[in-house]
Every structure is written in C-alpha cells, then in structure tokens.
C-alpha cells in the first residue's frame, strides 16, 4: 500500500469505508467532502504563510525588518492578526443595505474557493477535472466582480461606491487580455481541461518557452485582476481610502482580506498550470508526491514575482491604467491569438510550430515595446495637454 501515491489513495479509502458498511453513494459523498474541506484548509493555511511572506518581503525591500515579535521570525503574526480580526465587534453601518452588505464578503470568498476545484496539484490530484475548466475559471471569477460591486453599493459610502465602479472598470478591462491569453493556451494544448493542459507541456515543453509573449500578457493581467500594484487603484489608500470594503470591519473585513490573498495564490497557480508546466518536473510521473513539490515551488516563485512587483513599482493613474488595457494589452493579445491560430493551422511538425511561435511571440513583444517607447517619448516631448478626463 503506497499511501504517498494519491491515485491509490481514493480506491483505498473508498474500500475502507465501504468495509465499515456505508453504501457506495454515501462513501463518495464523504470522500468528496473530505477532499473539499482539505482543499479549503490547505488554501487558508497557505494564506497565513503568504501574508507573512509578503509582509516580510516588502519590509526587506523597504529596508525594514517586518513582523518579528510573535513567534520565530514573526511567523505567528498572521495568526495573531486573524484572531484579533475574528474577535472584533461586528459593525454594520446604519444606512447599509443589510442583505447584500452581509452577503458580499461571503460571495467574494466563495468565488475564489470555487476556482480551487480545478487546480491540478499533482498527477491525478484535482478537485474536478472539468472538460470546460478554463471557461469555468473565467465564469467563476466574474462572481468576484459581483461581490465587490455589492459591497461597494450596499455600504452606502461614496468612497466604497467609487471603489465599486473602479472594480468593474478595471477587472472587466483586464479580463479581456487575460481570457485571450488563456484562449491561446487552450489552442496550443487543444483542450480546456487543466489536466490536459499540463499534459500538453510534457518533456519540458513549457508554454512559457513556446509563448513568452502570451505569458507576459497573462501575468500583467493577473496583477490587475488581483488588484495588485501597479494596478491597485481599487483600494488606493490616498484616493478612495480603501475602496469597496471601506465600511467592513472585523470578520467581514477578514473575508475580503482572505479573498485578496487567495486570489494571489490561485492566479499564481494558474500561471504555473498554463505556462510553467504545472506539477511537471523530473520523476513527477512516477512519484506523484513530487508533483506537489514542483507545483509549490513554481507557484511560490510566481507569488514572489508578484510581491516583487508590488514592492518596487508605484501605482498607475486610472486613465493610464484603462488606456494600457485597451490600447496595448487587448490589441497585443488579439494579434498573439491570431498568430497562434494561424501557426497551428499550417500543419508543420511540432518542433517547427514551437520554434515559429517563439520567434513570432518575441517579435510581437519587441514591436509592442518599441511602439510603447515611442509613445512615451512623444508624450514627454509634447507640451502638456489637458489632463484626460
């Protein structure tokens, strides 16, 4: 009995429970229940760590020490903060629309946890290998937009409302290039199932090597979708205080906080899945437990990248942010998508397809960067026009 192999774990467990005398149906219910609870627990526990990591990392970049009082290296700081948040008084503004005010944080967390179901952690370890996996991710993340809008509106606060407007404007705009990037991945992999996308990256043929341009697009859009610097206008402290969750405190704020970091985690894991080969690595096929290790290493690296960006870059202005999405990212993603589709239709041998895609991707990125550089130079030379509305 090899308990380290998750593929033998399920039949072993099912036969164990059925040995006790439970019917097959209830065994499956129990098995899935255990699966979902461990998935949720895994996510929450890793959030405790990621929050600590982010604070520590940002502190180091800014020449501080960061949390160092609670536990070794301040590791228990997040737990202390969580307990503090949970024990705070639960306040509802007098003029708030009660139902949607209370529903919004729950819906926000719900939307992220639903996405967790399709993350492939290792060979054969996935909550539900939907054959519409990629589409499912896009569909579910739109519920998160809904939640932010509800929170912004029901708080009855103008800063919250402004934050809500910004959520829709930003997340919808950046969803377009993000989905285009995903579609390019789907075209190359030939399937929307996340396990099949990972399978298509066998033998070190990570899509990152094949389509670096698409990867760049995806990671930029992911930063925006995650409301991270340089796109953190939704909660820009100096402009709208805290955005749509300004009126939330205690446990309800904790939900939004959790949503933010869960988003980081899952966007990083989808970046890993789509472009960095998912759980693939040496011997991951034979020893599935290694898949977990590779998966976590890659995901942590992507999260580090996102933290690095957050710690180093200033925030964009809102008109710059929207212009960047619609004038740069969307056309680029369309061009890359068309290139991918045409190259795949040419019917070349696989190695030529990869090489051609790589060359074209790099060319497109260079051309776009060239245009951007020219636009910026023109912008500096030109006498300042009125600030765009």
């Amino acid at each position: 009995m090899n308990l380290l192999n998750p593929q033998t774990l399920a039949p072993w467990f099912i036969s164990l429970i059925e040995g006790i005398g439970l019917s097959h149906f209830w065994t499956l219910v129990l098995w899935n229940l255990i699966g979902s609870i461990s998935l949720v627990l895994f996510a929450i526990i890793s959030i405790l760590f990621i929050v600590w990591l982010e604070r520590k990392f940002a502190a180091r970049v800014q020449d501080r020490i960061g949390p160092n009082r609670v536990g070794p290296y301040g590791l228990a700081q997040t737990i202390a903060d969580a307990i503090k948040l949970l024990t705070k008084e639960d306040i509802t503004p007098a003029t708030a629309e009660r139902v949607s005010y209370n529903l919004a944080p729950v819906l926000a967390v719900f939307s992220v946890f639903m996405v967790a179901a399709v993350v492939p952690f290792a060979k054969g370890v996935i909550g539900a290998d939907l054959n519409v996996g990629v589409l499912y991710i896009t569909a579910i993340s739109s519920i998160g937009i809904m939640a932010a809008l509800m929170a912004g509106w029901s708080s009855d606060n103008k800063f919250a409302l402004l934050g809500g407007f910004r959520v829709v404007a930003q997340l919808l705009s950046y969803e377009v290039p993000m989905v285009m990037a995903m579609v390019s991945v789907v075209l190359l992999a030939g399937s929307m199932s996340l396990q099949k996308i990972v399978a298509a990256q066998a033998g070190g043929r990570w899509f990152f090597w094949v389509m670096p341009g698409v990867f760049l697009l995806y990671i930029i859009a992911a930063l925006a979708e995650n409301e991270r610097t340089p796109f953190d206008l939704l909660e820009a402290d100096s402009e709208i205080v805290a955005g749509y969750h300004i009126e939330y405190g205690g446990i309800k704020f904790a939900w939004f906080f959790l949503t933010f970091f869960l988003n980081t985690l899952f966007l990083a894991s989808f970046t890993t899945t789509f472009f960095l080969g998912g759980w693939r690595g040496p011997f991951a096929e034979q020893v599935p437990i290694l898949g977990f290790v590779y998966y976590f290493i890659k995901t942590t690296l992507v999260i580090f990248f996102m933290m690095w960006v957050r710690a180093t870059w200033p925030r964009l202005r809102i008109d710059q942010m929207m212009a960047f999405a619609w004038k740069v990212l969307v056309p680029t993603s369309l061009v890359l998508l068309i290139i991918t589709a045409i190259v795949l239709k040419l019917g070349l041998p696989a190695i030529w397809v990869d090489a051609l895609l790589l060359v074209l991707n790099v060319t497109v990125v260079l051309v776009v960067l060239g245009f951007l550089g020219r636009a910026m130079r023109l912008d500096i030379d030109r006498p300042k026009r009125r600030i765009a509305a």
Partner: protein
Amino acid sequence: MITQAIFIIVSLFTLVTALLVVRHPNLFSSALYLVASFFGVASLYVLLEADFLAVVQVMVYIGAISILIIFAIMLSKGMMGKHTSPHNQQDRWVALAGLLLAIILLYFLVALVQWPTTPVGPVPANAIQLLGQDLVGRFVMPFEIASVLLLAALIGAIAIAREREI
C-alpha cells in the same frame, strides 16, 4: 430521486427569485435577484449534464449582462435610493396580461409541439470540439451575422458616447 428533489428545489429558487426581480421595490436589489435567478438556470443546465452551457450561462449572464445592468443602474441619476422601482398603478392588468400570455404560450408548447422523448445517449466526450466546429462550419452564417451585429452595436455605442472635440 435525489436528482428530482434537487430539480424541484432549484426550480423553486429560480422562480421565486425571478418573481422578486419584478416585485422588489429597490432596483439594485432586483438586479441582484436577477443574478440569483440566472444562477438557478445555470444549475438546471448542470442537472441536464450540459456543463458547457452552464458555464457559459454564468459567464455571459452573470459575468457580463448582470454587471452591465448594475452599472447602468449605478450610473442613472437617483437610482441608488431605497425605493426606486418604476412601478405604476397598473400591476393587476400587467399580471393578467402576463398570465394570459403564459397560458397561450404553454398551450402551444405543451399541446401542439411534439417533444421527442427518445434518449439520445450520453454526451460525447468531445462535445465542445464538435460545437466549435459546427459554429464555424455548418452555422457559420448566423455566427458571423451575430458578430457583425455586436460589432455594429459596439461602434454605435462609441459613436454616441464620444466626446466631440471642438
């Protein structure tokens, strides 16, 4: 048995939320109930083993259309108060007319249309590929016409909303 129970619960949920959409005094809440109703419909699709349709339902109706509706409500003047529903005094007549229309439609749908009930077998594994190929193969004309229509609407909206530079 369980499927039946789930179906009844989901349908009731869909219907009740749909009723609340038209009856709620607050327009924003109506929009939220509309989202809930769309969710019910998506669940029905899942029950019918139409995953693709369910996901598209969530993406298009909740992710795009509802958010657009809510955005329109938020941008309208005086729509953010507590009682904003544009109800007038003719509820009863509307209800009567709606009921009549429903009866007529149901009569046509139930009595006149032959619903084939032969089982079509399990959904093929590559259903999405087939759907995609049909969309750009057999049904390429309707597909393209819809795209052109949407593009025209998009350009029209931009043309109307565009700031005239004087």
